[in-house]
């Protein structure tokens, strides 16, 4: 919790870390869209190889990446079980039945695809956040969405709120710890009693926390005003984001892979036979 401000960022010096964060964000979106075009196990297998290759290049330990899947394990299981139990396929596909439970072959295939889809879907943003700091991401988002400010969407304001939140969270977490200790020292008990009692016991922590958050916000506003802040007006940035050759290369790789997935999906130029060969290979 203390390290929310760095998120799950894993510092390493890899090509992927050094890519322009705006580009990484765009590529991540492309990747997510691409996942929805995949329909065959061949496609999923290729994508898995692709994303694992990215992890390898990024020098983030595989274990770290897999750990992020822990959070979705229930979602995956839930989806799989529901699909298997309630999918109704052709009678000739029926594999096994008992009482009202009928399990079809297509259900298993569907469930497998669904699970793969969710897992691969999550791996994309995981690689992004492991190789990009939240600050870089916020910054990239602000710059990417800048055109929206012409239609009066407060992009800059949203971005600055986000970056201040990232900045203040560790401070507030620390403060919460302190207040909890202080109230415990006055005999407060946060651990026993029912849910309602426990929620009530948190008041002596929440109230001082709110009061001090408002005070901090006030002081921060004064400090920002003092440092000539007046919103996006006339504001420049120190860090210039410039796309370089490696960014174009990365884009080409992603685009090419996306194209392959489309080829497989729609069988353009009748390349379906290649997919079959690959599938047989597996």
């Amino acid at each position, binding site marked *: 919790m203390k390290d929310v*401000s*760095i998120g799950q960022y894993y510092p390493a010096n890899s090509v992927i870390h050094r890519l322009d964060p705006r580009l990484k964000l765009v590529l991540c979106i492309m990747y997510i869209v691409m996942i929805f075009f995949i329909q065959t196990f061949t496609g999923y297998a290729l994508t898995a190889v692709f994303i694992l290759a990215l992890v390898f290049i990024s020098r983030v330990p595989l274990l770290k990446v897999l750990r992020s899947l822990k959070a979705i394990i229930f979602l995956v299981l839930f989806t799989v079980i529901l699909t298997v139990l309630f999918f109704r396929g052709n009678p000739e596909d029926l594999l096994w039945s008992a009482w009202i439970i009928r399990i079809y072959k297509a259900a298993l295939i569907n469930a497998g695809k669904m699970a793969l889809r969710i897992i691969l879907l999550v791996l994309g943003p995981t690689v992004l956040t492991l190789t990009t*700091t*939240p*600050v870089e991401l916020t910054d990239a988002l602000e710059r990417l969405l800048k055109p929206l400010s012409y239609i009066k969407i407060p992009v800059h304001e949203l971005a*600055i709120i986000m*970056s*201040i939140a*990232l*900045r203040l969270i*560790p*401070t507030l977490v620390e403060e919460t710890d302190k207040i909890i200790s202080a109230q415990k020292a006055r005999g407060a008990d946060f651990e026993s009693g029912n849910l309602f009692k426990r929620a009530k016991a948190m008041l002596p922590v929440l109230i001082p926390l709110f009061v001090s958050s408002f*005070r*901090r916000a006030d*002081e*921060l506003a*004064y*400090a*920002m*005003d*003092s*440092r*000539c*802040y*007046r919103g996006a007006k*006339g*504001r*420049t*940035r*120190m*860090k*210039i984001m410039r796309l370089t050759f490696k960014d174009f290369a990365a884009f080409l790789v992603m685009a090419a892979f996306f194209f392959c997935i489309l080829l497989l999906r729609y069988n353009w130029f009748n390349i379906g036979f290649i997919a079959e060969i690959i599938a047989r290979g597996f």
Partner: protein
Amino acid sequence: MSLIEFEHVNYSYNAGTESETLAVKDFSLTIEEGEFIALVGHNGSGKSTVAKLVNGLILPSNGTVKVDGMRTDDKDKLFDIRKTVGVVFQNPDNQMIATIIEDDIAFGPENIGLPPKEISERVDWALECVGMSGHRKGTPFRLSGGQKQRIAIAGVLAIKPRVIVLDESTAMLDPVGRDEVMKVVKRLRDEEKMTVIMITHFMEETLDADRIVVMNDGCIVLQGGKEIFERETELETIGLDVPPIKRIANKLRAKGVNVADGVLDAETLAGELCR
């Protein structure tokens, strides 16, 4: 024309409600370019209100505040006023807006719309001014209080204001941190020729000032050079101390030891006593 002019300024908090309190009363003060002013008073004497009035964070209820001839209640001038006067506040944690030190220091120069290269140069310069050059890419979280406050000072310096106001910027620091900050302040005055307004309740920190302004209950009660430390009882009744060396000198004199008036620092007093 003086650089900063307060003319008969009143300011009340919660104006128009029953808890209205007059924090600053008929406050008049002029500050010249290059001066080092120490503004002292106990907590609640109104000194921090003055800090917020200087660069138009709050506007006087009556009277005027002018910075380099610009009135703080002139909305069009506010931006230029804030480029001229930078304020460093008490709690360094509540002044930083970015998670990375260089981004934080760049915030001011970015706001005034400088080109990227110049911003980067100013970040380097400001960090060097406060002696924190090695920390450019670091985060402020693991720094000591004194270091954090130096980063906050650098954030203000990067705008290159002519005046720097330190609003009790040493109050939350340990003695080591206070020394660090005071060293930086002296350097800004001596080398960068900046105008400094040091707001504090530590009398030791006023010793280097050209002029000491003592506030009580929203008003200026004493003003002048180091001779004001002769008014020990007066200072004590409004909750302030004279520097300890001065106090010893006074006590010695009361016991019949021959000590000259106006001795404030240990070196001089020791010299007198060990002749």
